[in-house]
């Protein structure tokens, strides 16, 4: 396979372009998609190629257009709807909680809802309390959503193509600090199945499960830890629903120790869930307490100093791993 380096946002754009060329029923809908190509430029060029019919600019009516996306999906369209930031989920809250993901179940499996919502997550640029959240754990708590959190351009492209082809509602989360990072992506077409974790680094001492931006912070921490003689295994679940329990548990069986690094708030977060699963299913393998390195359950503050204080960083990761590694 020939590869080249492209930006994360180019990977997203490529995935959508390929899927839109392949399948007429795929269309894009959201705010400022045409001229802006969405605020961070992920979609630039798609309007030019696919025109007004397949790239819809909406009013600021998230309930209206998320619901319309679900309705169109039920009829057989494959809308990819942009929710500008995951912080806005509440604006379309009922469509996101009670409608899109429950329709199939409530109606006894009589319909499917192949809706993708693309949204931006994450802190890191002082966007403050209304534009910095990573509350995908709320989505994961709602029955009926699949949820994707890619950490590299390669994963971003392969998983987005899978999302578009999936017959269930998918929440696809793009981290704002990753959108302009680069990575290798094959020239050839590929998809990545949901529910398969990716081991971003192998190691025998401590398993660290990390998501999105946190994968990169963890990989940096790994270098530092390696110098101290601690080799961590970095497991990136890539999708939190479905979650690849097996890979996580197998890694913990090997290392006996687990740290979870997650940017979402700690309380009732996916970090808690992974901890609970592992302590249920791999209790005998654990030789130390499971540690979570997460964002405390506070609104994301604006000032860089404060934002830095709440979002997990290398220092906190290193500290947690050390504690777990030295627990006896």
């Amino acid at each position, binding site marked *: 396979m020939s590869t080249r380096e492209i930006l994360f946002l180019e990977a997203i754009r490529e995935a959508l372009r390929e899927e839109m060329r392949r399948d007429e029923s795929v*269309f894009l809908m959201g705010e400022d998609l045409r001229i802006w190509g969405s605020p961070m430029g992920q979609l630039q060029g798609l309007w030019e190629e696919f025109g007004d*019919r397949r790239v*819809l600019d*909406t*009013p600021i*009516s*998230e*309930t*209206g*257009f*998320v*619901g*319309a*996306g*679900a*309705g*169109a*999906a*039920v*009829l*057989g*369209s494959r809308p990819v709807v942009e929710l500008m930031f995951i912080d806005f989920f509440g604006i379309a809250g*009922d*469509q996101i909680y*009670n*409608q899109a993901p429950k*329709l*199939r*179940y*409530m*109606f*006894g*499996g*009589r*319909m*499917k809802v192949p809706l993708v919502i693309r949204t931006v997550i994450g802190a890191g640029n002082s966007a403050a309390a209304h534009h910095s959240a990573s509350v995908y754990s709320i989505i994961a708590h709602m*029955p*009926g959503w*699949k949820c994707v959190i890619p950490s590299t351009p390669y994963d971003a492209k392969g998983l987005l193509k899978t999302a578009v082809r*999936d*017959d*269930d509602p998918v929440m696809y989360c793009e981290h704002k600090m990753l959108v302009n990072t680069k990575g290798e992506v094959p020239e050839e077409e590929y998809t990545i199945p949901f*529910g398969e974790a990716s081991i971003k680094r192998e190691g025998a001492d401590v398993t660290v499960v990390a998501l999105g931006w946190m994968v990169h912070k963890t990989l940096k921490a790994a270098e530092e830890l390696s110098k101290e003689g601690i080799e961590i295994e970095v497991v990136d679940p890539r999708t939190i*629903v*479905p*979650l690849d329990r097996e890979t996580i548990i197998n890694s913990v069986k090997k290392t006996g120790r687990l740290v979870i690094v997650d940017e979402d708030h700690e309380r009732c977060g996916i970090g808690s869930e992974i901890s609970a699963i592992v302590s249920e299913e791999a209790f005998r393998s654990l030789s130390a307490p499971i540690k979570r390195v997460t964002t405390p359950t506070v609104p994301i503050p604006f000032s860089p100093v404060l934002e830095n204080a709440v979002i997990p960083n290398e220092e906190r990761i290193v500290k947690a791993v050390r504690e777990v590694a030295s627990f006896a």
Partner: protein
Amino acid sequence: MEITKETLLEMYRKMQLIRYFEARTKELFAAGKVPGFVHLYSGEEGIAVGVCSALRQNDYIGSTHRGHGHCIAKGGDVKYMMAELYGKETGYCKGKGGSMHIADFDLGILGACGIVGGSIPLSTGAALHFKYNGTDQVAVTFFGDGATNQGSFHESINLAAIWDLPVIFVCENNKYAESTSISSVMKVEKISERASGYGVPGITVDGNDVIAVYETTLEVVERARKGKGPTLVECVTCRHQGHYEGDSGTYRTKEMVEECKKRCPIKRLCTFLQEEGFSSKKEIEDIDKSVEKEVEAAIEFAEKSPWPKPEDALTDVFVSPYY
């Protein structure tokens, strides 16, 4: 527009089917056969039947918590409906939905909805799908007077307006949202006045006059099929009983309810049919009997149907297996 005898009799039959279905449902609820929340459509039949008679089978409707009437009017089978109300495996939704969640895709029934205003965006999306694919299908979204105070109504009708979507917004104005009188929650006289804020035509029609509803719908549907966009149709009506089974309904005087029952859409059509010589008393009685039979058979079907299997509770969350 000429309305045929056949259409008129079919409208009568459907209204009676709804009325009798609801009457029996009321009893079955009281008898503990039908669990959950049940909102009856009795008294409002003119709307569902008038509207749906103007639609094609491949047109779609979105419905509400008070959805039995919509479902029957669009051709829903009372057998599967009743089985669903019982929570049986043979129900429209295999017992997963119940009274507030019934759908039949093959008949263009997008589904009822327990959330007030919750299905308006979905029906609007169905219309978007039609426009996207260049078909001439239309979608109808039913909702109550109370629902017009939800943001979802506002956002959806505006979306439909700017994109000229083929969707009809049918407001069933029965003057109450639960115990709350419409006059205490909005200042406009007519809900159709809200249409102008979106650049959409608004019409008010007597919802108890099934023929008027039918004719109005034909017109606005025609307009929608031609790509000229949505219309807000307010149908004024009233309900014959409480908001849901269990509601004592003390916020309306007996006189109000009696006055309401006098405006019954079924009686009205029945009189019209006979006075205008469309049908004989006998013909009407035959319909009434056939309707009773159909509902009783549905009840028997529901009674005899098996319960779902507990393990089925975990299927249908996803198309792919449950995680």
